[in-house]
């Protein structure tokens, strides 16, 4: 006989160590079973869409770093600049396109490492955090040498990138790539073989394919549910069309599938970086664009694959030196909406496991 008890409202957040930011989850519980989850967001709403209307196209690059997803600053710059370059019909030289691709994939690695580390802490595997951040510091050092920033780079510019690479940088990246593949094996050793970890994630938080599409899930979350869609393959931008890589897709739709998608993506990123460095052409790194560039009237929607999913920037220009309206289609925002679907019916202890597997960044959700 099923025991029915009174429903309990549990309030997680907005300041909670495992909500990955300032997210508030209102969880309705029946005993230990989750009846409903209502995410309450907006605690980090930084009004970046409004601010972009008052800043020039160049200044907005600095804002795109901070106002959007802070773990993937370069991916934000890329999404924003792709829209700008589409509206302004600005050409990007080949070398700059390859440089951008390398940077974007390094950014993907660093972002996934933060995700893996923090998810490990959520699931009780504290050591993974230390290992992930050890590698992440290596990537940040590489970033620091090339762009001057650890988290926020302001490296891409309309029509190219700011500076060329320092001497010997590509060798250091290649050395890191070789080492990193071994590190990914280590993470697999630590987590994938661990029965406690598997018991907490395997079969938990299932999101079927049709629901994933209907709820607007994107990126690794959708790919773990069998949606074979990656913007890098479907709408190639920068140098992705010229590089060979696979898009990992899993059919299960549970936390473990999301974990495996990202682990595989890390390997693919390394592959992309190695190819891009091998193919890196010489030449200009930046086409001539004025500082206060004015774009013609028009609008464009540019889609990029940020580490969290399908990052879109819808830009409306009215012929001024600042955009008229910027809408940022944030991947975390859509993935967080699908969270309710994943959590319903699971136990309260699974909230953390499922939330961590979605990999949201609240700055991306709220913008």
């Amino acid at each position: 006989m099923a025991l029915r008890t009174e429903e309990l409202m549990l309030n997680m957040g907005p300041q909670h160590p495992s909500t990955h930011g300032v997210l508030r989850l209102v969880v309705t519980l029946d005993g230990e079973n989750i009846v409903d989850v209502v995410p309450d967001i907006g605690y980090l709403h930084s009004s970046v869409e409004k601010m972009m209307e008052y800043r020039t196209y160049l200044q907005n690059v600095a804002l795109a770093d901070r106002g959007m997803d802070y773990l993937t600053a370069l991916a934000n710059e890329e999404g924003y600049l792709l829209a700008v370059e589409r509206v302004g019909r600005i050409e990007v030289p080949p070398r700059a396109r390859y440089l951008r691709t390398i940077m974007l994939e390094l950014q993907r690695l660093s972002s996934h490492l933060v995700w893996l580390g923090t998810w490990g802490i959520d699931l009780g595997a504290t050591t993974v955090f230390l290992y992930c951040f050890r590698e992440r510091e290596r990537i940040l050092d590489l970033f620091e040498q090339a762009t001057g920033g650890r988290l926020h780079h302001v490296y891409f510019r309309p029509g190219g990138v700011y500076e060329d690479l320092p001497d010997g940088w590509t060798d250091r990246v290649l050395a890191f790539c070789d080492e990193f593949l071994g590190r990914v094996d280590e993470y697999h050793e630590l987590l994938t073989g661990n029965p406690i970890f598997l018991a907490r994630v395997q079969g938990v938080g299932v999101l079927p394919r049709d629901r994933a599409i209907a709820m607007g899930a994107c990126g690794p979350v959708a790919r773990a549910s069998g949606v074979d869609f990656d913007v890098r393959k479907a709408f190639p931008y920068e140098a992705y069309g010229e590089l060979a890589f696979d898009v990992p897709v899993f059919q299960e739709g549970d936390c473990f599938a999301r974990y495996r998608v990202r682990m595989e993506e890390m390997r693919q990123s390394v592959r992309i970086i190695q190819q891009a460095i091998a193919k890196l052409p010489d030449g200009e790194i930046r086409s001539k664009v004025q500082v206060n560039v004015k774009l013609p009237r028009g609008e464009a929607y540019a889609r990029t694959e940020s580490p969290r999913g399908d990052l879109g920037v819808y830009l409306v220009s009215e012929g001024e030196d600042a955009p008229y309206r910027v809408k940022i289609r944030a991947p975390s925002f859509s993935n967080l909406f699908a969270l309710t679907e994943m959590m319903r019916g699971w136990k309260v202890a699974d909230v953390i496991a499922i939330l961590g597997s979605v990999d949201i960044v609240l700055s991306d959700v709220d913008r």
Partner: protein
Amino acid sequence: MSWALVERLRERFPEVEPFPREAPHEAGAPVGRPGRHEARGPTYHTPGAFVPAARLLEVARVLRDEAPFGLDYCSFVTGVDRPEQDLVEVVYHLFSMDERHELLLKVRVPRRDPRVPSVSALWPAANWHEREAYDLLGVVFEGHPDLRRIMMTDDWEGHPLRKDYVYQEPRWLVDLGAQRQREIEGLRLGDRA
């Protein structure tokens, strides 16, 4: 592919008005100078069409369910405030996961009373995007299951992404600032600022 999609939609619904087609890129045109493009009006780089608000639900249902379209994924819903034309453009971006084509829909509604039927029954993903558009631009989505503010606090006044929005510090923050001032005055010099 996608511009052809707009034509197909036009055949089905004659009142749908396609975006003007993208003007061809002039070779050697100076980068970042509005100049010559200016006279032609805005260019649209993503295929799409204007839809009257009254027919939106009908069009949306066809776009989602019927064969050549099959747009099963709603990327975002947002709005663009245009005070000089006295309208708010509600923008929908639709995408097909199988066919890989995309479409922008624009619905123009009066600025004073922007009302659009909600598409969240067709695409559940539109739910939060519509709430966001309501919060930041004041567009009312009729038939939305839970139209509340999502980003700002519930008692926030005004819709911040409107062009004529004026920011006012909330009352409690002003009060808290005054309280902090008293706290600072209560402390001796060198204690803490």
